[in-house]
C-alpha cells in the first residue's frame, strides 16, 4: 500500500496534517514546546490578539459543565507588537506553522492588526475572531451581523496577502449564511465553531459561577451541533472549512472531515490530555490503513446522506 498522505490545504496554506491547536487553548504555542513537537502539528492557532495588551476578566474564568466547560477569559493577551517581538521568532525556530487569531474592538483595529502581522516574518495565516462571546465591544457584534462579517473580512482582505480565515460564531440562526458572506468577502476559508454563549449558576450562593456572568461552552457537549453546522456550511460554500467543537479522539476528527471540514482544530481536549496530538495522528493513520484511504483529504465531505447507518450492523 502507498504511504499515507495526511496533508491538507487551506487556500495557499499547506499543512502536513489537519490537526490545528485551537486558539486560546494552546497559549502562544511555546507553553507546550516541552510536551509536543510544535512542528508535528498541522498548525498552531495562537491566543486571540488585539493591538494592545489586555488584562482579560477577573476569575472565575472557567467552570466545568457536563462534557464541557464554560470560559470567559476576556482575551487576556500581550498585544500584537509584543507577540511579534517575543513569540513569533521562537515559533519560527520551532518550525511551527502559525495561524494568528486576531481581534478588534473596531473595524480599524482589525485592519491595523492584520496589516502589522502581514509585515511580520513567520505568520502563515490570519484567523479573524469575530465570534468571541465573552467581550462586549467588538468581535461578536461583527460576527452576528452579515454586513459586519462581510465588511471586516473584505477590509482585511484588502490589506493582506496572507490567507484570511474568519472564525464564525455558532450563536446564530444560520451559520451557513455567514459562511457565504465570508466567501463573498474574499475569505480563503472559514473556521467554526467558536463557543456557545452559556451560563452556569451556583445555586448555593445564587450567583453566576463566572465573573463575566456568561461564558462560552466548549468540549464534547457541543460536538453534534458543531458537526451539523460544518455540514450545513459545506453545502453553502466552496472555500475550505476548519471544523472544531469537542474533538477528543481521531474518530471525532474524521466525523468533522466527513461532514465537510478540510482541517480541524482541537481546543478543550488539549487541556485534558496535552499529549493528545500523536494519539490523534496514530488514530487517523490506523483508520486510513483499515479503510485503505491513502489521501485523507479524499474524506472531506464524504458522508453518504442518502443511506443512513444501520445501528446494529
Amino acid at each position, binding site marked *: 500500500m502507498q504511504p499515507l498522505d495526511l496533508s491538507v490545504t487551506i487556500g495557499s496554506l499547506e499543512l502536513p496534517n489537519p490537526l490545528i491547536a485551537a486558539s*486560546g*487553548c*494552546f*497559549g502562544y504555542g511555546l*507553553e*507546550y514546546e*516541552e*510536551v509536543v513537537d510544535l512542528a508535528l502539528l498541522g498548525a498552531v492557532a495562537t*491566543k486571540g490578539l488585539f493591538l494592545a495588551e489586555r*488584562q*482579560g476578566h*477577573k*476569575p*472565575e*474564568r*472557567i*467552570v*466545568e459543565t*457536563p*462534557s*464541557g*466547560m464554560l*470560559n470567559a*477569559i476576556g482575551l*487576556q493577551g500581550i498585544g500584537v507588537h509584543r507577540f511579534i517581538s517575543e513569540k513569533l521568532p521562537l515559533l519560527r525556530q520551532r518550525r511551527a506553522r502559525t495561524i494568528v487569531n486576531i481581534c478588534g474592538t473596531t473595524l480599524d483595529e482589525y485592519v491595523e492588526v492584520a496589516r502589522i502581522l502581514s509585515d511580520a516574518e513567520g505568520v502563515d495565516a490570519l484567523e479573524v475572531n469575530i465570534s468571541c462571546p465573552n467581550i462586549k465591544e467588538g468581535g461578536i457584534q461583527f460576527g452576528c451581523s452579515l454586513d459586519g462579517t462581510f465588511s471586516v473580512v473584505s477590509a482585511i482582505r484588502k490589506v493582506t496577502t496572507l490567507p484570511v480565515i474568519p472564525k464564525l460564531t455558532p450563536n446564530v440562526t444560520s451559520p451557513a449564511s455567514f459562511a457565504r458572506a465570508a466567501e463573498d468577502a474574499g475569505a480563503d476559508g472559514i473556521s467554526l465553531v467558536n463557543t456557545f454563549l452559556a451560563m452556569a449558576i451556583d445555586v448555593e450562593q445564587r450567583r453566576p459561577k463566572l465573573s463575566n456572568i456568561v461564558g462560552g461552552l466548549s*468540549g*464534547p*457537549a457541543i460536538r453534534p451541533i458543531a458537526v451539523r453546522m460544518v455540514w450545513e456550511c459545506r453545502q453553502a460554500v466552496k472555500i475550505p472549512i476548519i471544523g472544531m467543537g469537542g474533538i*477528543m479522539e481521531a474518530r471525532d476528527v474524521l466525523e468533522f472531515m466527513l461532514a465537510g471540514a478540510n482541517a480541524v482544530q482541537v481546543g*478543550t481536549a*488539549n*487541556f*485534558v*490530555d*496535552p*499529549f493528545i496530538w500523536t494519539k490523534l495522528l496514530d488514530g487517523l493513520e490506523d483508520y486510513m490503513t483499515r479503510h485503505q484511504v491513502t489521501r485523507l483529504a479524499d474524506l472531506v465531505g464524504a458522508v453518504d446522506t442518502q443511506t443512513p447507518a444501520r445501528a446494529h450492523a
Partner: protein
Amino acid sequence: MPPVDVRAAVLSNVRLSRDYNVLTIAAPEVGALTEPGQFVMLKTSTSSDPMLRRPFSVFEVLRDDLGTVRAISILNKRAGRTTGLLYDLDAGDTVSCLGPLGLPFNPPAAGEAWMVAGGVGLAPFATLAEALVALEVPTTLFYGARTGDELYYLEFFDRLGVRLVLCTEDGSIGVPGRVTLPLEASLQALGGPNEVTLYACGPEPMLAAVARLSAAYGQPNEVSMERTMGCGLGGCYSCVVPVKHADGHTRYVRSCIGGPVFDGATVVWD
C-alpha cells in the same frame, strides 16, 4: 524537566476522616521529578463527565529502602466531583497523573523556615519539610484546622524534627482560633528582619494575612495560591493571580506556570 502523564495504579487509599484521605499512586516517574510545592493534574476516568483534570499538590514522594522513588501520595479533601471520586478509589483502580507542574518553593536565603498551613493546605509541606531538614534549616509548622481531629500527620513532622505550633478553631487542640494568631505572636518575639522565611498554603484570607504579617515584620514569604485550573500548563488562562510587576503595572499571571508559589509581597490581594 518536562512533565509526564502516567496512568497510575492506586496502591492504597487511607481515609483519614469523612472528608480527608491519603491516596498513594504508582507514579514514580512523576515523583522522581517533583520539587516541594509542585503539583499534579489528576483525572479519575476517561469519561467526559467529569472531563477536566484537577490540580493537587504532591503530598509525599515515597521511596523504597534503597531510596528509589516508588510512588507519590495525595492528601485529598472532598470538595466536589473529582475529589469525591478520589476519596472513593480503591487499590487497583487507576488515575491519570500529569506532572510535576508549576514553580516550587525556594529555600530560605538565611535563617529559619516557618511553614503556615490551613486545613488541606498542609499538602505541600511534607515534601518541603523533608527538603528543609536535609538542608539543616530549623523548621516550624504553624498548622491550623477547624477541629483537633482534622490535624493530620503530626508524628510525621515531629519525627522529622519540625517544631509544631497547632491551632484549632474549636480550641480542642493547641491555640484556639486562627493560625495567624500564634504566628503573629511569634513574629513579634523576633529581633530583626530576614530571620525567618514564611511559607503559606491554605485559604486565601489566610494567605493574605500571612503576606501582610510578613511585610509588617520584614520577613520574606512565599504563598501557594489555589485557583481553578483548566490545564495546568499555561494553555487556558483560567488560573490567573494579579501580580504587581517591576514596571509598577499589575498583570494577571497564570498560576500554573508563574506559580502556584508566589512571593506574597507581589500578589495583589482583594
